[in-house]
């Protein structure tokens, strides 16, 4: 039987990247901090990769909307990062004040993954963002590196930028994943779907689902979790830490937000 009260989050650590919309990320972080009664620790990641990029004399920037090519100066990048950091702090302060949360803010200068890994070594729920642009194997690497570097005690919430949490919360057949999914489904007002890779797992899920408070259904999937019914949609995938390898493909396929649990 799932017991959602077993989940205890004392701190929410959020990492905002230069390409993120601070309002969007901070909003979810604040919401979860308020929900768990946790303090909010905000971080702006001054991405070392971008600083390196701007420091190369021959690189240019290409406007996303028009395709216009412009010179890319290090100072220009520094200014853009500083503005972004300021906007992130402002968004954090406003939302934390509105919800009467304790909060802090700092800037980390490092490659994004290093920064996230750094946060993961602290106690608390880590919220970071993913995107599909860039190197095609980046996401796989991100997940793999996170799994390897993050202490088992830290749950990690990986958000897709520019995408609302809209659609069912899908959980793998794991008691802790179910407990988190139940809480998150309620928080985001979404239905809950539990994945089972076998009849046996399905039976176990039925037992575990007794304590769930949100409406839910169970979907049978293949062993690697990739073959899903045609109409299946996913807003947020909650994966037990030990199931990451199996469900990384599903995460890629659905393009949804991912929540990786801690270990009990």
């Amino acid at each position, binding site marked *: 039987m799932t017991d959602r009260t077993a989940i205890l989050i004392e701190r929410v650590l959020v990492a905002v990247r*230069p*390409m993120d919309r601070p309002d969007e990320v901070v909003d979810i972080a604040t919401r979860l901090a308020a929900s768990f009664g946790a303090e909010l620790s905000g971080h702006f990641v001054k991405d070392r*990769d*971008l600083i*390196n*990029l*701007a*420091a*190369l*004399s*021959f*690189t*240019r*920037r*290409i*406007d*996303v*909307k*028009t*395709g*216009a*090519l*412009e010179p*890319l100066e290090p100072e*220009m*990048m520094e200014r*853009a*990062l500083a*503005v*972004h950091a300021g906007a992130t702090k402002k968004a954090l302060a406003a939302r934390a004040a509105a919800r009467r949360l304790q909060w802090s803010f700092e800037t980390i200068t490092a*490659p994004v993954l290093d920064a996230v890994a750094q946060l993961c070594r602290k106690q608390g729920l880590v919220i970071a963002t993913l*995107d599909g*642009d*860039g*190197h*095609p194997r980046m996401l796989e*690497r991100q997940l793999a590196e996170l799994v390897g570097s993050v202490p088992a005690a830290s749950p990690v919430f990986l958000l897709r930028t520019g995408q609302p949490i809209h659609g069912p919360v899908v959980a793998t057949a794991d008691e802790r994943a179910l407990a988190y999914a139940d809480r998150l489904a309620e928080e985001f007002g979404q239905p809950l779907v539990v994945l089972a890779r076998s009849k046996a797992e399905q039976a176990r899920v039925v037992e575990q689902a007794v304590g769930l408070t949100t409406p839910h259904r169970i979907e049978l999937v293949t062993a690697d979790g990739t073959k899903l019914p045609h109409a299946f949609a996913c807003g947020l995938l909650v994966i037990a830490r030990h199931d990451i390898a199996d469900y990384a493909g599903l995460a890629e396929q659905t393009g949804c937000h991912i929540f990786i649990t801690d270990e009990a």
Partner: protein
Amino acid sequence: MAEVTQSGNDPTKTKQAGSAVSGRFDPDRLKLLLSDISHRNDPAEFDFETTDDLTDPDAVPGQQRAVDAIAFALAMERPGYNLFAIGSEGLGKRRIIEGFLHEKAKARTVPREYCYVNNFSEPHKPIVLPVPAGRGSALKDAMARFVVDVKAALTAAFTGEEYRTAAQVIEGEVAHRQSEAIKTVKDEAEKRGIALLRTPLGFGLASVRDGKTISPQEFQELPEDEQQKIKDDTEELEQKLQAALQKMPVLISEAREKTKALNEKTARFAVEHLIDTIKAMFEDLSEVVAYLENVEGDVVSNAETFLAAPEEALGDTSTWSEGPTLFWRYRVNLLIDHSENGKAPVVFEDEPTFERLLGRIEHRSERGTLVTDFNLIRPGSLHKANGGYLLIDVLRLLRHPLAWDALKRVLEAGEIRIETLASALGFTSTTTLEPEPVPLDVKVVLIGERIFYYLLSTYDPDFRNHFKVLADFEEAVEHGDDERQMFVQSIAALARREKLNPFDRSAVAALLDDAARHADDTRKLSADFERLCDLMREADFIASRNSHEAVCAADIKAARAAELKRKSRISERLQEAMERQLILIDTEGERVGQVNGLSVFQLGDMSFGKPSRITARVSLGRGDVVDIEREVELGGPIHSKGVLILSGYLRARYAPHHPLSLAASLVFEQSYGGVEGDSASAAELFTLLSALADMPIRQSLAVTGSVNQHGEIQVIGGVNEKIEGFFDLCAARGLTGGQGVLIPAGNVQHLVLDDRVLVAVEAEKFHIYGINSIDEGIEILTGQPAGQLDEAGLFPQGTVNGRVQARLFDFAQRRRAFARAMADDEGDKSS
């Protein structure tokens, strides 16, 4: 007979002529009998017991002229034949006219209703929709339902699987083509060991080593040819990415068009059946159908706006509390609802301001700014009365800025155009609405005092174009049998309307007496029904307090006395001052050059009479009669005219052949306010004659009346109050039997005196004389014969006129002698 000298008429040489006038000298012949002055309505003449036995009158008593005018104006269906009803306050003009209007309104069809709706092409110019009576509310309700339904219908249509799939296909196509374009570059970049990074400043291409971007130091440590390759690859990829991204705006634009077309198709599907349902209800009204088609078009073309709007912008469309929503534009503002009316409207506008007449455009505060829309257009009384009748008090209309001009403009244009007072004055600086004007079909009735009609007709050239019919209400009703019967029935009707106890015939007679007194005429009855009604209410109150089943004459008199008592503080203070000799008025004895004149004080709706001492002093002069009141600017022009007439009278009567060598001064003693009117001119002349003749005047008498240059006494106003004023002073000091009042004989018909005076007259304690001429008056006042002019132009010696003539001749002689002596003195000096 008079003896005439050769040198001319010398009054000093006339013989004693007392015998010549003694036969005619009988002042008491002018004393009025009780029967002359006691004009009372006799209750015994009535054939009813109480007003409950009477029916309502068939017509308005004494107002046939005005009634005919009203009927004409209401029947005349031409522009400009509006009605202007004039007459004093209290004549019941409004009540009478409203009675006619309500009757006429029943025969007219219920007028059309007008709705303001949004103008989708020019929102600041709301459109007016005319609909038959009763259907405005149906349209309003239908559109209110539509506003609710359209939200649900759009929500359902745009959240349905069909729409979402179609929208996703369009979006997906763009996203797919976009990501494909980027992916192509990205794949190629990966092959060359370069990562496509998204930065806050756009895309950037960075060389990757071991999954990490290369730093400038690492780059510098690379061999030159490798560095060059990275540079070349990067530049090439940048060009390709640029080319790919430059196609994006076109793709997005195409997708937007497709989305728009999809949204319009979906919205039309959602809204069409809703609009068709309403169209079917109003298919006979082409303007409404056209409007509904515009609504459909607007919903369809704005579907994207509705979808993109936050929930609160759509909101609960049934209430105003949260402010207007996007769907508010489809509501119907029904200006006037005639669905409950079975007749044409009759509206009395009691506060005819500019905005209350024309309507107004309200505003609401939105984020610190005042904004408005067609839903905030409010009707004016012209809208409310459109298709019927509008009554306005002209004084109130003229008192409000621009209201009169606005009314004229509306009548001239034949349509009601709502505008703000600020814009009418040219003060508007913010954008406001310009609602389409509403066609006007209204009969306007202005009610007011006569002065306004004559001022407007004289000074406003537009006036006669818009108010062609005059209803001139009589101030008083003839006291003939028919009119009196109608008047009595009107009293009965008033009693019923006011839910008063019945009035018995003695009360009715007393009311008629009061109406005659208020008319100041025994042959008339005052048409001031408002005042009459007040008296009836007060009498009813007293009757109820005295447990009378029917109001009787005593109740009427008590009510009247109570009213007088309430209003008589000033009168009593003046009376007290006279009794204490603070204001000097003699009521006995004789004095030369002094007479009691009579004045009326008008204080609001209260008037009362009081005596005033008038004195005259005479001396040798050049024919000037000085009116001291005029000299100190306390006398009005009419009063001054009366005094100037005296000079003419004296000159023509007593000094036709020699210069009027008189200097006389006349004054109202202890008068510190203004004096106006010529009703004291006879008294002034008597004073002057007394002074000239050196004959005393009886101070037990008082005089009122105006005089012309022939010495004829002319009627004056307020005769009853004047008599009662002197009577009260005499009564307070004790009636001697020798006291009385001289009034113009022409005023006898106006006498409706209080009972206390009549009782004294009957007991011969007080006398009223009706005089026609100065001679008659002077004989009563002096107790001496006036004297008749003989053939030689002389008055008998010893008569008043004879003494005046002699005195004036003496003045002339003295003046001539004086002038000659002066001339001699001047001659001596010059020689």
